[in-house]
């Protein structure tokens, strides 16, 4: 049995006009060309990445062998770095010091050679510093869990989503805050930041939502969504009755090369504000 081909909705007396209005989707040649360029670049990068992976693997293996050898020869356990080099600045007071950023990884011990003097200044000092105080909930993994903290990150993210789905917005935001605080380099960060902004808006925490969106719109990680974020920020201001800031956000969105939908929404929002 074959079902008959139904008439298309665009001919429907009631809803046809709406369907016809949605038919027009224009994909510009610039957009297609830009995507083609990115595909080519990714393919090219993929080839060189394979070579990099090989080189990196060799370096890692070499490094591991060297570390193991040095431990065997010295018969010592690896130590946590606990010393930093404080180098005297040539033209600064006695208390002014520059903590060299990579010195903390040197793990100097008492028998370490003397650090040479900074040019034209006092001799640098080596001083012992106390390890940073880590709060008990700071999520620093212990030896048993050091292999991966991804499950914990996912747990926090899932808890946030479940809370949000139940309508418990504040606990959901708290979970995301905890995720971002404990795992600042998590790969879930972009998603978590967007979700957090959404939940702040839904929870009517207007000022915090605005701050979050402003931060996201200026973040490199969200550069591709800048126009969309600014348009959303404009919407948020407009809903809050702040047309001046809404127009400003819409204008910035329009200057950020928005996609068709965001351009249209930003223009429409700006028009509504200016009509008021």
């Amino acid at each position, binding site marked *: 049995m074959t079902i008959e081909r*139904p008439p298309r909705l665009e001919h429907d007396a009631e809803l046809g006009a*709406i*369907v016809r*209005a949605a038919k027009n989707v224009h994909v510009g040649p610039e957009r*297609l060309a830009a995507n*083609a360029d990115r*595909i080519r670049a990714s393919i090219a990068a993929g080839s060189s990445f394979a070579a990099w992976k090989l080189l990196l693997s060799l370096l890692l293996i070499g490094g591991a062998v060297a570390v193991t050898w040095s431990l065997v020869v010295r018969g010592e356990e690896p130590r946590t770095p606990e010393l930093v080099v404080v180098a005297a600045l040539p033209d600064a007071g006695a208390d002014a010091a520059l903590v060299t950023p990579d010195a903390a990884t040197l793990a100097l011990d008492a028998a370490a050679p003397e650090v040479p003097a900074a040019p034209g200044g006092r001799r640098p000092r080596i001083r012992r510093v106390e390890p940073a105080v880590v709060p008990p909930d700071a999520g620093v993994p212990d030896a048993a869990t050091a292999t991966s903290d991804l499950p914990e990150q996912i747990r926090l993210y899932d808890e946030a989503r479940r809370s949000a789905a139940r309508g418990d917005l504040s606990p959901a935001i708290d979970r995301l805050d905890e995720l971002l605080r404990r795992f600042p380099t998590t790969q879930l960060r972009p998603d978590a930041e967007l979700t957090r902004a*959404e939940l702040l808006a839904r929870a009517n925490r207007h000022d915090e939502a605005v701050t979050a969106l402003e931060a996201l719109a200026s973040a490199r990680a969200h550069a591709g969504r800048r126009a969309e974020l600014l348009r*959303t920020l404009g919407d948020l201001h407009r809903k809050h009755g702040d047309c001046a800031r809404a127009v400003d956000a819409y204008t910035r969105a329009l200057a950020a090369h928005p996609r068709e939908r965001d351009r249209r929404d930003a223009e429409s*929002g700006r028009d509504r504000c200016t009509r008021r």
Partner: protein
Amino acid sequence: MKVAAGSGDQPAVGSPNVAAADVRSALDLDAIYAEHAPFLTRVLIRLVGDGSHVDDLVQETFLVAHRKRASFDGSSAVRTWLYGIAAHLAMRHRRGAGRWLRALGVYAEQPPRVSANPADELERARAAHLLRATLERLPFKQREVVVLYELEEMEGADIAELLGIPVNTVWTRLHHGRKQLQELLRKQIDRSAR
């Protein structure tokens, strides 16, 4: 963007009848992109809403195609193969980050007031926005059939080939998808009229 060395006399990559080896040798990604990217981009916009995520999905589709070119045996048309990849990515995307940003947009921009007969350009834009937002509430499999039939104006047999399903399944999904779409749209119009 050549996937494999193609000959000057290339077979039609859209034809499912080309021998597998010939098809693989004809997988010039530039040509495939030029032929299919506009369609895929348009359909993805309709399926998941426009934004930079659509560009990400288009790029990922062709990168996956490039990686998996060895497994393409020509038993289906190139468009079917590419669409399968794109639809899979689009479905996965719906479960991922993209929906949060759209959710944020939905929050900030409540469904617009819309009439059943949009007269001016602004109203048409609102109507289009409403239809896209409503489409996003349909299950993916129904949504893609509605999009391909109602907006892309493809025939049932072509949709069936593209999705790799029987024609009757196309009509069944279309029936349920349209029913739900009509109900949702009517509700929205009634709300606007009040």
